[in-house]
């Protein structure tokens, strides 16, 4: 039985002031007192007065607290939720509470000058309420598609929008859908990839936790376009709250006939199921994901055949990332031209990044494709921490490239980054200041791949162990020049001969680290 709801403000200002940690502290404290089943916690609300951010609102009383540090969050749980006493010294003045808190605040594209498509509702609506979503144009694209558009119209709109997959590779989404639509086999599936295990990436979780219906609506539109009637969301096992939010959102949508049989009186039926993983990075790779979805070990399959031909249960399957799917309803609603006007020619739209490391403001940023790394760090990240100098950034998660200051001004989209030998990947941006030890960083990154290698192929299974050993010797100042040469050879070999993307990407941080910061590796050699 839920008896209370706690909402924490999730706007960028609140997040920059530690709202996420406050929320975590509240959740930890709730489970400490055994209240986790009675009290639900979410993000919402926007306050016009920034001096009280982040705020915490406790319903049904409607008590508003702010600004709330993690420690205050624990106190609110102990006093208010556990003992039932309002914490007077943390509440905001009544007139601010009444006038300023708007749980359904007006939409704003201009917070920090961000352009928001995917995140436009996140933090502004209650993710547990389908009414909030509907009030902000929710399910309007689906309704329009079902009444005024043929499946092919939807497919062509997405194709013309040039939407590219946001799961890392940037594959054109409309093209992928058309492969599935062409198959003779009538049973088809839509799979949403919410495995999100790339270190430094949590955009998909926040999209789901902030606006779950946007993903469901995107899946339904995709199903309509390619003729699928069943969708599966594969979500990583650790994302307990996001899973819960999705399950509730699906139930609400089914109740209102926005999902399920004969949606809105049409003859299109679409059911969505949620399937949670159990901890394995490789399950984000689409064919490993499909194996895991079928109850197997998450080992990659040989491609071809691609999932578009033989995917889930051997049937034609669309596999798309959460962020990709969250872009679909806005595109169908506003048209391909609207979408193409945002971002760059080759990569329209926006990109959601997670900015981390040595910057003043960490967290989620959504900006048009083509924004440079320097702009993102300076404008949204508030600059490098403690006034230090920028040394390197790693883009795209663990498998991403380590890039030096010379690439700070490259407009970031899939193609331009690729031309520079870098990648957007998952959208993780890890900023490292002048004090960062690149050898140490490479060591930690390789350790990740060694842990997560699925063990199917030898180059990846053995190569990562050997690379880690070499780096360990280097770190301790025990390596000779021949060790460094061998490290490079192994890295090359693992990149060339691994079976799947995990092994092929694992050496990237070493190779790019060596390309741009070779002197640091050499400085660690034994004299």
């Amino acid at each position, binding site marked *: 039985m839920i008896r209370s709801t706690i909402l924490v403000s999730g706007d960028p200002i609140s997040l920059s002031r530690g709202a*996420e940690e406050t929320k975590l502290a509240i959740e930890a404290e709730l489970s400490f007192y055994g209240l986790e089943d009675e009290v639900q916690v979410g993000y919402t609300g926007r306050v016009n007065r920034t001096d009280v951010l982040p705020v915490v609102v406790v319903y049904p009383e409607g008590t508003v607290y702010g600004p709330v540090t993690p420690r205050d969050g624990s106190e609110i749980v102990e006093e208010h939720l556990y003992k039932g006493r309002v914490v007077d010294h943390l509440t905001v003045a009544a007139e601010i509470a009444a006038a300023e808190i708007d749980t359904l605040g007006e939409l704003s594209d201009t917070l920090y000058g961000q352009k928001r498509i995917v995140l436009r509702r996140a933090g502004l609506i209650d993710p547990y309420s389908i009414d909030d979503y509907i009030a902000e144009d929710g399910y309007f694209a689906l309704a329009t598609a079902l009444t005024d558009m043929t499946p092919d119209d939807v497919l062509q709109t997405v194709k013309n929008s040039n939407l590219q997959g946001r799961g890392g590779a940037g594959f054109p989404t409309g093209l992928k859908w058309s492969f599935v639509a062409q198959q003779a086999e009538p049973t088809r599936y839509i799979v949403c990839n919410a495995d999100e295990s790339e*270190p430094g990436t949590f955009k998909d979780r926040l999209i789901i936790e902030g606006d779950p219906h946007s993903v469901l609506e995107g899946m339904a539109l995709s199903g309509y376009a390619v003729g699928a009637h069943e969708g599966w969301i594969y979500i990583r*096992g650790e994302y307990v709250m996001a899973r819960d939010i999705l399950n509730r959102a699906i139930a609400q949508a089914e109740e209102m006939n926005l999902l399920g049989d004969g949606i809105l009186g049409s003859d299109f039926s679409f059911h969505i199921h949620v*399937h949670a993983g159990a*901890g*394995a990075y490789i399950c984000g790779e689409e064919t490993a994901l499909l194996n895991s979805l079928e109850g197997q070990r*998450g080992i990659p399959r040989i491609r071809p055949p691609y999932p578009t031909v033989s995917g889930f249960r051997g049937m034609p399957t669309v596999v798309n990332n959460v962020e990709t799917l969250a872009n679909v309803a806005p595109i169908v609603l506003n048209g391909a031209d609207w979408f193409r006007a945002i971002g760059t020619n080759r990569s329209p739209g926006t990109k959601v990044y997670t900015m981390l490391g040595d910057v003043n403001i960490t967290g989620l940023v959504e900006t048009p494709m083509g924004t440079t790394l320097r702009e993102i760090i300076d404008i949204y990240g508030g600059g490098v921490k403690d006034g230090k100098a920028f040394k390197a950034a790693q883009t795209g998660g663990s498998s991403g490239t380590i890039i030096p200051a010379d690439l700070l001004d490259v407009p970031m989209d899939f193609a331009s980054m690729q031309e520079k030998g870098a990648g957007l990947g998952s959208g993780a941006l890890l900023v490292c200041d002048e004090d960062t030890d690149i050898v140490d960083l490479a060591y*930690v990154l390789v350790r990740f791949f060694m842990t997560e290698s699925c063990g199917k192929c030898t180059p990846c299974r053995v190569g990562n162990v050997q690379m880690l050993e070499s780096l360990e010797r280097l770190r301790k100042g025990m390596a000779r020049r021949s060790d460094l040469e061998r490290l490079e050879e192994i890295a090359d070999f693992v990149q060339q001969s691994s079976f799947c993307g995990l092994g092929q990407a694992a050496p990237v941080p070493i190779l790019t680290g060596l390309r741009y910061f070779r002197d640091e590796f050499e400085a660690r050699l034994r004299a």
Partner: protein
Amino acid sequence: MEDVIAATNRIIDKYGANSESLVEILRELNDVGGYLTTEHLAQAAKRLRVPESKVASVASFYSLISLEPMGRHVIRFCQDAPCHVVGGREVWEALEHELGIPFGETTLDGEWSLMTTSCIGACAVGPVMMVDEDIYGNLTPERAREIIARYRTASRQAAQSAERAGFAAQGGQE
């Protein structure tokens, strides 16, 4: 307490006796007692009609499923780069020191297991660790020690009140 067979059956009934749900079933079953025994695996194999060897091989693949007993509290410390560059290494050392065990092990009294995890997506507040289901962020060596102390106090209090309850029950009988 619910026995192994009953727990296994309950969770299989929830998901349906369908081999596609094997990974979800094993994960949820693991959460009941912290790890899986051969008895769990055998019962799951029987109900789902798949070979026991397959169930074991699936179970061993996923990191949220454990085939070894775990401590009463399990710490999972994030070992990935975003947490590492913001001070993870110092916290790593503090945890080993405070609990007196290296990563990967369980204390002799069975109270604590010290494990690593890959990124759990809380890197904006790194370094990060999970204690059982709860996430703690912005860790420093000091804060990590404080958090452990809190759990220790809570278990001591629980033990004391259980003892008192025991006395009271005995007193009542006389």
